């Protein structure tokens, strides 16, 4: 398909596109190999030891994250810990989470001095922690940068994180498909904290997706604060402002708990709701299918487990399975899958509280 205009083709090609581009860029960057000969690639891949569950060389991984003051970050810590426990050859040095930039820099410097083999860092503030990422890399400790990105690629060996723009895009496409054929459809958006870049990216993705559906108009948008309390307050106002609309996208399942409470209190059920992030309560509501919530768009906390996998593979000088590359990619963007009734069981165990 030369010009993918309809939703399904864009939707399905996205995963391939991302993996492909990550693989291509990694290959170009790290090995300088630009060969397109598939036979050669296959041979290379078969010679490359990929990391697997078999115990290998002992690896000490240092993990530094922000204070786990909400469900998603808490799930990040749990994912990292549980993944590390799974491997007998991995020792995890985990720091006390901190939202204070200076404190987090200190913690990471301590890990550098301890000479851990690999660092996994989820910075409280990506830009502010760039220097300490650079310091670790210069000290010969490869850094896996988790989610909140450093200022420069020099500060990490591999970045892995979620796709905020993709969340908005997929939420918009899901709603677009559901409202297909409905003329004059009205959509509202309950955003997260407005002065965060991720909120603007999510909104941008959502707006871009809706452009594909000329029958849909976004009639209102209010920003909450990722908290239950703010979700309830803002949603109650939105419901009063819009006496009829067809769909709602809520950026975050935590504030969604409050938003759904407001919807219940207003006695409204005349629209469909799509959430964001992937909280357990949202999965359960989708599975029960007795309210307005029909789907949620993932921002998967399992990325922390993947980061541990990547760190272990780096520490053991191995590649990752399922790819033709000698080396681990420089950048991995996760896919913001839409979870609805049809596939919710598969994701239930990843839901966070």
């Amino acid at each position, binding site marked *: 398909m030369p010009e993918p205009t309809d939703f399904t083709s864009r939707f399905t090609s996205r995963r391939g596109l991302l993996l492909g581009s990550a693989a291509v860029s990694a290959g170009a960057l790290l090995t300088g190999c630009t060969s397109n000969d598939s036979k050669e690639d296959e041979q290379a891949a078969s010679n490359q030891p990929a990391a697997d569950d078999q115990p290998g060389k002992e690896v000490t991984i240092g993990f530094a994250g922000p204070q786990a*003051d909400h469900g998603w970050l808490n799930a990040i810590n749990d994912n990292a810990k549980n993944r590390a426990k799974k491997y007998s050859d991995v020792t995890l040095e985990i720091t006390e989470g901190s939202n204070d930039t200076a404190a987090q820099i200190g913690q990471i410097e301590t890990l550098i001095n301890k000479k851990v083999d690999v660092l996994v860092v989820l910075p409280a503030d990506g830009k502010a922690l760039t220097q300490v990422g650079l310091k670790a890399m210069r000290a010969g400790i490869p850094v896996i940068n988790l989610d909140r990105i450093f200022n420069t690629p020099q500060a990490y060996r591999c970045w892995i994180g979620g796709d905020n723009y993709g969340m908005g895009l997929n939420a918009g496409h899901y709603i677009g498909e559901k409202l297909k054929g409905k003329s004059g459809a009205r959509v509202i958006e309950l955003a997260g904290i407005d*002065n965060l870049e991720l909120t603007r990216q999510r909104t941008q993705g959502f707006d871009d997706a809706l452009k594909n559906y000329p029958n849909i108009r976004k009639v209102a948008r*209010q920003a909450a604060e990722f908290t239950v309390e703010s979700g309830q307050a803002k949603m109650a106002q939105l419901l*009063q402002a819009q*006496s009829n609309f067809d769909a709602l996208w809520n950026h975050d399942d935590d504030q969604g708990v*409050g938003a759904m409470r407001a919807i219940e209190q*207003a*006695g409204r059920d005349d629209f469909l709701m799509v959430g964001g992030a992937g909280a357990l309560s949202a999965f359960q509501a989708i599975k029960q299918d007795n309210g307005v919530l029909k789907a949620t768009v993932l921002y998967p906390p399992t990325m922390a487990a993947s980061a541990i996998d990547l760190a272990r593979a780096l520490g053991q000088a191995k590649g990752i399975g399922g790819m033709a590359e000698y080396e681990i990619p420089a950048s991995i963007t996760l896919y913001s899958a839409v979870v609805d009734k049809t596939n919710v069981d598969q994701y239930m165990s990843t839901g966070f509280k």
Partner: protein
Amino acid sequence: MTQPVSPPRDSADKMPSANEPPAWRALVFRADVRTLSLLGVLAVLILIGGVTKPDEFLDTRNLQLVLTQASVIGVVTVGMTFVITSGGIDLSVGAIVALASVWATTVATQEYGFAGILFTAVLVGVGCGLVNGLLIAYGGMVPFIATLAMLASARGLALQITDGQTQIVSVSSILDLGERDAYVLGVPPLVMVFAVVTIIGWLVLNRTTFGRRTVAVGGNAEAARLAGIDVRRQRLYLYLLSGLCCGIAAFLLIILSGSGQNTNGNLYELDAIAAAIIGGTLLSGGRGTITGSVLGVLIFTTITNIFALNNLQSDVQQIAKGAIIVAAVLVQRRTASTT
């Protein structure tokens, strides 16, 4: 005196008579100019709301909505007004609401149902207030520092209890109170609690010895002590009162949001202080008005409501909110100095 039966206005102006106290006049005099100017600000806001969104704003459901959203912070502000009137400050109100709301919604507490949740929320609030009060009244700590310390530790404890997770309430008798079916004659239960707390607060501040002592301590603590008031005990009671209000507010918030979260009550301290100050309570103490505080809360909630109904984004909301605070205070100053 030109007429044998003079209208009350004339008699009051020209010849105040002890036999015929004009009741309406006394009422107007008592409602001081500040309160009237606040009512003016609120009237202007209602006019703006009514003009920009006539259908959505001038609607019973919207009135219910605004009053419901004002209830939680309103109850906190009543307690805060007492503390500020006494010359103190309570920076820990938001953190106490957070701690009380998460403690009251743990799995263990929820097993005790409605009473367990209510009891825990109030007890945690009072407990925190007691610690604040003891530190300030008998530990000699400055209120700013003592309650700042409480803010930090209560938030920390709330985080420790929840582990960052959202605690969803499954007790149906609690949840039902937030539904429309629970409204009595169109009044939501939350609003009733807010009204009762306001009335009691008004009576206590204006009609009891406790209220007069509070004003006296705020006006001049040394003079109050010399006049025989136990200033330290009075201060202890005031922080207890503020804690109690936080506990009640936490309970209302649990009903409203159907959950407990450690992020609850975010920046309540600033909202409550702002509402009290705009209402006419002196930050330096010695003068306090419950009516003004409640009007302050209603003004803020109405602004938020009008902005949301007009789909204005948070950047505009924040700028306008700041401007309105300044405008309201300036208007008050002017009206107060010219009359």
